[in-house]
């Protein structure tokens, strides 16, 4: 099990943090946190739950699919994908 954690300051002032637990290519746990806004709020936990148990290779598609269901304010899905890429490749 590998634990990774990354933080990114987003243009405009908000902060995005992702904590990741990986077992080889599988996401065991993920927490997306920070001082941003999401509408509806429940969508962030839904996204985390959807990502748990999936392969890191499917991340991008799952997140892109989620874009239709939630409006992010202060951060973007691109920020989430980029930070995840940084973490996975680190």
């Amino acid at each position: 099990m590998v634990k990774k954690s990354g933080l990114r300051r987003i243009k405009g002032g908000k902060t995005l943090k992702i904590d990741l637990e990986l077992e080889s290519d599988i996401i065991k746990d993920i927490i997306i946190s920070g001082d941003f806004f999401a509408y509806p709020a429940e969508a962030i936990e839904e996204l985390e739950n959807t990502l748990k148990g999936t392969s890191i290779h499917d991340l991008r598609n799952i997140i892109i699919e989620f874009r239709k269901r939630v409006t992010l304010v202060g951060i973007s899905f691109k920020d989430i994908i980029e930070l995840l890429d940084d973490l996975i490749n680190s």
Partner: protein
Amino acid sequence: MKWRLIIDEGDVYWDMAVDEAMLLLHEEGLTPNTLRIYVIKPSGVTFGYFQRIHDAINIDYLDSMKIDYTRRLTGGGAVYHDMNGEITYSVVADIDDISWDILESYRIICQGIVYAIEEFGLKAQYKPINDVLVNGKKISGSAQARKKRSLLQHGTLMYNTDLDILAKTIRVPKEKMLAHGIKSIRERVTTLALELGYNPGYRRVINALINGFKKALDIELERQKLTPMEIRYAKRLVGKYRSREWIYKR
């Protein structure tokens, strides 16, 4: 349009429960559009729905000082609500009456704070998404939650907050510090008292907020009390805001 005005005070758990109760009941058509102005008493800390508690606040300091803290229903960052230096507001309304555009709705409601500050002869500036600045320093922050047809926006106006305590209660990520340069909290945050050179006192601040929101939202206000149903809902919700499960949710 006539809205209801509520002015009250309570501890941080009760206050968060009342705001959520009003939002839930507004969604059901059972609470009217409301401006609520309140003092969180005793002083407390709230932090954003999506924040990890250990990243957001200094739990050891808060516990040692016996300062209450809880997670909000709304996103955003951590706030120190100084009972002798900060007024909290909440707006509960039909999204139709504000704006379906999220950023626009923040701007419209935050304009109430801008007008309130201008009542003291100061210049204030709305900084998207959710801040109001005076002389380039943050004096107010807000956060909004939405249901299908109703919104709740609550936020803060600091008039005499103890910034030394504020700095000890809230954690700022290293990256954010670096981006700001190694600036002290006093270079980034301000209060009405610091800008005016005197403490205007909570009564004047409350009156300024009432006038500010009337102007920004183009509404009339009628002072009323929470309904028995709102109090019943809030009593049901207050346990959540006190619970370890909610506070340590992430």
